[in-house]
């Protein structure tokens, strides 16, 4: 999506409002409904999509007028970002609002309004230059070419820094030029990411390493998908061995209800390597008992459409049987290189 179309979409919103007021009508927005009732799991695509219902936000309604104003302001904020080739974080946006007489109760509220703008325009907020604060990192033998203003045509080798490169707006919109890697290995923790860089595991497995840091930002998911699609790299996901880790993988594969209105985020063919319950048993990993929250989460996942397959149900049931969980770092019990030499070697092709 080009910058021009994003600006046009925003301008159109403003024109509708101005025309409507001048004609003596209260402006309204029809926004695709993001409430659970209208979020559907598309079994063919194996991902969440938004249903056909939309909600009307009516500026004449006393209960809507505030969020209506917030939405218009977010749109104008986004337009200013685009016009000036700037980016901003969700947190920045939240704090900026005050200077414009717009009030948000908390950042959760402003994040929600940004979500409304995405739904209204059908464009992800990244298109408008709005990113979350937290950044994932990437490392591997891929050369990217920037498209952001001031860096057009410049390239970057993703092995340039031994700490990995943060995935920000510039990298997200960069085009892959050249690739020596054969797969993408996304890992949950920063510790494991550093370990794999230091031990040159990327070389050994020909992998592009991505550090997720818990549930990854959408920019990261989008980049993983882009590399997967354009370079045809298979995606492997390595997380902690618990329901939360499992779900990180599942969201990369099928998306989440929260971003059901955003396309091009998912990699349905990605593979969750583990740590599985079976791994905990077969590698005799140091583990700890699951808490009530963990067990409850397992039950929730069991009822989640995304887990409605024999493979996933097997993983869930195996955890329920052993009632134990293990972190990625648990492999260190067998020495610092064990995870690379043994575990990854077993699991990766």
């Amino acid at each position, binding site marked *: 999506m080009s910058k021009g179309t994003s600006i046009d979409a925003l301008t159109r919103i*403003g024109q509708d409002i*101005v025309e409507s007021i001048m004609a003596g009508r209260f402006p309204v927005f029809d926004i695709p409904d993001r409430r659970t009732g209208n979020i559907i799991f598309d079994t063919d695509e194996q991902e969440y999509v938004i249903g056909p219902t939309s909600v009307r936000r009516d500026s004449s309604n006393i209960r809507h007028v505030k969020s209506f104003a917030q939405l*218009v302001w977010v749109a104008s904020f986004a337009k200013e970002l685009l016009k000036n080739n700037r980016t901003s974080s969700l947190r920045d946006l939240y704090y900026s609002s005050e200077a414009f007489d717009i009030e948000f109760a908390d950042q959760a509220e402003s994040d929600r309004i940004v979500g409304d703008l995405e739904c209204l325009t059908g464009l992800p907020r990244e298109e408008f230059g709005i990113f979350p604060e937290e950044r994932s990192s990437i490392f591997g033998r891929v050369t990217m070419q920037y498209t952001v203003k001031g860096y057009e045509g410049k390239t970057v080798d993703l092995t340039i820094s031994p700490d990995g490169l943060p995935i920000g707006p510039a990298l997200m919109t960069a085009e892959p030029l050249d690739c020596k890697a054969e797969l993408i290995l996304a890992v949950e923790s920063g510790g494991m990411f550093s370990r794999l860089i230091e031990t040159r595991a990327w070389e050994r497995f020909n992998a592009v390493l991505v550090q997720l840091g818990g549930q990854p930002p959408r920019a990261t998911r989008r980049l993983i998908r882009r590399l997967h699609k354009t370079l045809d790299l298979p995606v492997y996901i390595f997380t902690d061995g618990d329901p939360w880790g499992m779900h990180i993988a599942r969201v990369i594969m099928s998306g989440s209800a929260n971003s059901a209105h955003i396309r091009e985020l998912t990699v349905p063919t990605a593979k969750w390597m583990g740590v599985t319950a079976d791994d905990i048993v077969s590698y005799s990993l140091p583990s700890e008992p699951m808490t009530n929250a963990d067990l409850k989460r397992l039950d929730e996942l069991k009822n989640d459409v995304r887990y409605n397959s024999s493979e996933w149900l097997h993983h869930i049931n195996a955890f329920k049987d052993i009632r134990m969980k293990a972190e990625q770092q648990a492999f260190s019990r067998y020495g610092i290189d064990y995870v690379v030499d043994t575990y990854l070697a077993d699991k990766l092709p």
Partner: protein
Amino acid sequence: MTEASLVGTEFTSISVAEFFYRNRQMVGFGNPTQAVYSTIRELVENSLDACEDAKILPEINVIIRRESSDLLLIEVSDNGPGMPYQFVPEAFGKVLFGSKYGLRHKRGTFGLGVTMAVLYGQLTTNYPATIITKHGQGEANEFRLLVDIKNNTPIIEYSGPNSSHSIGTKVTLKIRGDLKRSKLRITEYLRLTSVSTPHAQITLLIDDNPPIQFGRYSKMIPTPPRISRPHPRSADIELLHHLISNNNSMTLKAFLVDTFQKCGTKTATRFLHFLSLNPNRTTESLTRDEIVRISNALRNYNGFDKPESQCLSPIGKDSLMEALNRLYPSASIKYEIRGPFEWNGHPTILEGAVVITDSTPAENPSLIRFANKVPLLYDASDDVLTLAMKRINWNRYGVDTNSQVLLFVNLCSTRIPYREAGKQSIAAIPAIQSEAELLFKTLGRAIKRESSSIRRSKRNARKMREFSKYFRLIARYGALLASVETTPDTSKLVESLFEVK
């Protein structure tokens, strides 16, 4: 003026002047602070009474000048009809000489007020009182008077024409008093007087300060109340005696019919039959015991219609509301009236207004008392209106700490049962108290209705403010988004939504 002699004569042999001076706290001259206030009050009330009788829009000037720390010159002048010159010395120099004993609603009652002020001034400063008054055609007259305390008679120091005085009456007194401590009371008294007498304009000038003006809030001159005959139920032994001995002897029946209201020949015949008294007996022949019997029967017989009330002159809804609206421009105000009812045969009306303001209440509700339009500023605690107010559960009517509730209540009656001659507090007569409670309850219901509608309109106003704030932002950022120069006007749309106008 004919009634004046009626009561006056009975006291001539007693040194009433001395009696009242000794008991001056009874009549409001107990200390140097109260004395200043009472002096002004007596003078202003006399001026108002005089103007009211003559249907004149009162213009009253009050001047207070401090000649030394506690020596004050007080001068009150009015645009009233003045007074017949031959009455001036007695009216100002003789205690219990007054023209207002007639049975109608008046501020002055006792024929005491102004002479007390004269007396107090004389005893504290040794100066005579100066009265300049213009009555009818011809030149005004000036008097300088002192009171012969032992004999309760005026001493005329000077009397003669005054050609420079063109209208009304001007009274000048010197008294020793505490101006600093009475100043607030005086301004409060004048402020409240302008509420109960909205057609009066009163100007207060203290030393070289800029003048303070109270009123006028209305140009409506109230119709002067009619003088009425007493109602039979008000005939206590004293009054009956008085009425009998001051009339020529006549038949009992003729006496009743002539003297009392609501007592025609039929009623009189029936009443005397009930008492088994011969209607043709002469009043002369009645024994003391019979007079007592008749008085008791008159007061208890229930065959008399209720007393006339044309002799009453309440402030009235329009005038009171107008004054209060001017004094409390953003308050909501409701008026209620009760009566006429009677207490011991005296026709009585209670009127009240409730004023709800935004200020933070000190005391809620707070009561402002009037008797026959005279503000009562002292001795509130035992007053019948205070007692009645305290019996009301104001919380029930939504009186809380959010807004100040002021209750203005005026008791109008041909007889105000003051607790003392200082005329500051009304006695707890059960009939008055229960009517006052009923008045407060109606006012309470009005408060409840008002405060919920105030709350509603406040809420609406707040909603509209909020709404238009957000809607303006929508227009502003909408215009910014559309890259148009001018933000479209939102006021019409917002007003249409809230149906303003």
